[in-house]
């Protein structure tokens, strides 16, 4: 186990390094510079800014400087938000997105698993069709439509809940629901398919031949085996959900990290793009690592041995 963890750590570091390197040089291939803003700075001023930030130096030199700083934990300053470091911005916005993401997962996973299980148990009956309908709608209707509808019904028409902003529990309800719909939809489908697949396994027949009741068969034999594919998708799902959603955050004016992903690329905010990419990369690698260890708890066949 210790050896496995050490091995994984080394691989993770290499992954992050590769990610940072590729992103750095890819960014440099984009035309333009961070100072071509709406105010149309004079070319002389742009050049001066470039040399002030060291952007006129050869790419490889810039790369070495960046990586050197990164090793010290310094991601540099944003070009767009002057005087604010990338790390500051991440630390201010990420907790809000993560909070929202966790809430939506806490609702989406149980509900999705439940609907998927019900659909599989009631296969071909009304409950099944209803669950499948929910999941098809959830996947195919974009979340800005769902979000806007919720705002209109609960905010504008009935006035029960605040429409936007992030100031307390009542503010989190609508965005949480909006964000969890996609999770519910995809999990219902996966869980339903997985339950049905397990149902045809020989060991389900063995369990029935033992004289177990339906509940015992489902709880002890079917659910745990059906969970295996769900756990596989857990790592990336958690990572992407906690990283915020550009659309949902815009829709509900939530000061999360989501909008920075899009804005920083548009503004060619080099340090910000790189910082966010690396932060997300670390997060994704860590989430997958945790899931791989969790995997062994559910499925003994892939328990980690050295």
């Amino acid at each position, binding site marked *: 186990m210790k050896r496995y963890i050490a091995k994984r750590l080394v691989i993770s570091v290499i992954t992050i390094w590769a990610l940072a390197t590729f992103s750095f040089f890819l960014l440099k291939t984009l035309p333009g510079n961070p100072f071509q803003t709406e105010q149309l700075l004079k070319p002389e001023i742009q050049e001066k800014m470039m040399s002030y930030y060291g952007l006129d130096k050869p790419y490889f030199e810039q790369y070495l400087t960046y990586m050197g700083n990164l090793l010290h934990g310094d991601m540099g300053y944003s070009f767009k938000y002057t005087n604010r470091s990338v790390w500051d911005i991440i630390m201010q916005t990420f907790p809000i997105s993560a909070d929202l993401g966790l809430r939506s997962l806490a609702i989406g996973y149980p509900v999705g698993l439940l609907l998927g299980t019900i659909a599989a148990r009631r296969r071909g009956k009304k409950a099944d069709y209803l669950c499948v309908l929910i999941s098809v709608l959830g996947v195919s209707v974009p979340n800005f439509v769902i979000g806007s509808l919720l705002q209109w019904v609960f905010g504008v028409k009935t006035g029960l809940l605040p429409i936007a902003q992030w100031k307390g529990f009542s503010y989190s309800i609508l965005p949480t629901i909006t964000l969890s719909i996609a999770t519910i939809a995809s999990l219902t489908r996966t869980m339903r398919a997985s339950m049905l697949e397990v149902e045809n396994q020989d060991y389900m027949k063995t369990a029935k*031949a033992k*004289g177990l009741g339906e509940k015992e068969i489902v709880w002890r034999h079917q659910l745990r085996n059906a969970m295996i594919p769900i756990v596989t998708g857990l790592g990336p799902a958690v990572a992407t959900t906690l990283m915020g959603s550009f659309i949902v955050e815009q829709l509900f004016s939530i000061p999360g990290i989501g909008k920075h992903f899009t804005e920083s690329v548009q503004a060619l905010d080099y340090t910000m793009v790189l910082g966010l990419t690396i932060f997300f990369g670390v997060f994704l690698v860590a989430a997958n690592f945790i899931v791989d260890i969790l995997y062994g708890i559910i499925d003994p066949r892939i328990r980690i041995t050295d």
Partner: protein
Amino acid sequence: MSILEVKDLRVSFHTYAGKVQAVRGVSFSVDKGKTLAIVGESGCGKSVTVQTIMKLTPTPPAFIEEGSILYEGTDIVGYSEKQMQKLRGKEFSMIFQDPMTSLNPTMRVGRQINENILKHMTLSSKEATKRTMEMMRLVGIANPEINMLRYPHTYSGGMRQRIMIAMGMAANPKILFADEPTTALDVTTQSQILDLINDLKKQFQMAVVLITHNLGVVARMADSVAVMYAGKVVETGTAREVFYEPKHPYTWGLLNSIPDTANMNGNRELPAIPGTPPDLFAPPKGCAFAARCPYAMKACIKAQPEETCLSDTHKVSCHLLDPRAPKVEPYHVKRQKTE
């Protein structure tokens, strides 16, 4: 005294394409402490018959159209799911063909055996664990204290089949259904598993219904034999009768296609029964075997043969046994010694 008697059982699967008549009037009986072997080629309804007795085939699509299943004199055809749950595992047990897939991969083997004991016996969990270990020792697994904590994937095929047997035997069933228990195992393991089933049968006076298409296994294990073809029993009798005095051309064909390793000279072709079994969506009006039978007569295509009783135990359904039929020489039947 027969412990299980199946009379004229008919089972159909209702599918979109129509009704598949998988079992078309099967009758047999099993005595206490005896072994009945059901033989026949793939798709002849062996497994469906046995799974119907335990009601393991889901309804729909499978329906019992007709017939009775008498267990200790009581007809269990109309039993509800709840009533069946009391029989399954306690009175009847079943071991399956592929031990690699019939154990739950995410549950420790001890717990899988234990589950059966707790369900059917009034034992404390401590006593149940003790019995689990006893059962594991009984099927030849040493150190059950440690081995009961292992997961199925850490065992070999033969060991897993032993665990399946321990699980099936855990609540002292009266009948053990073994659905091709050795097909997925290698030859030496096969032999060990068959010996184990035989030992346990004698020790616990248990009836065994063995499904197989290996006639060597039949000769070694069976007290009586039922030969099935296209959803019907075409010949049934004691092992001696079926092996030494077979009367049905299908039985002749089966016995004839056992490879003869003693007189092999490399030239002899392995005999086979030509043709394929009939489509059970629309079974033929006459004898189902007529199309492949070298002795088929006009009568065979027109009408189903009646069952002829040659002795108390030996029953054959074939028009050749009609007094008006021509006398035919059975094609070379090899004499297999019943061990």
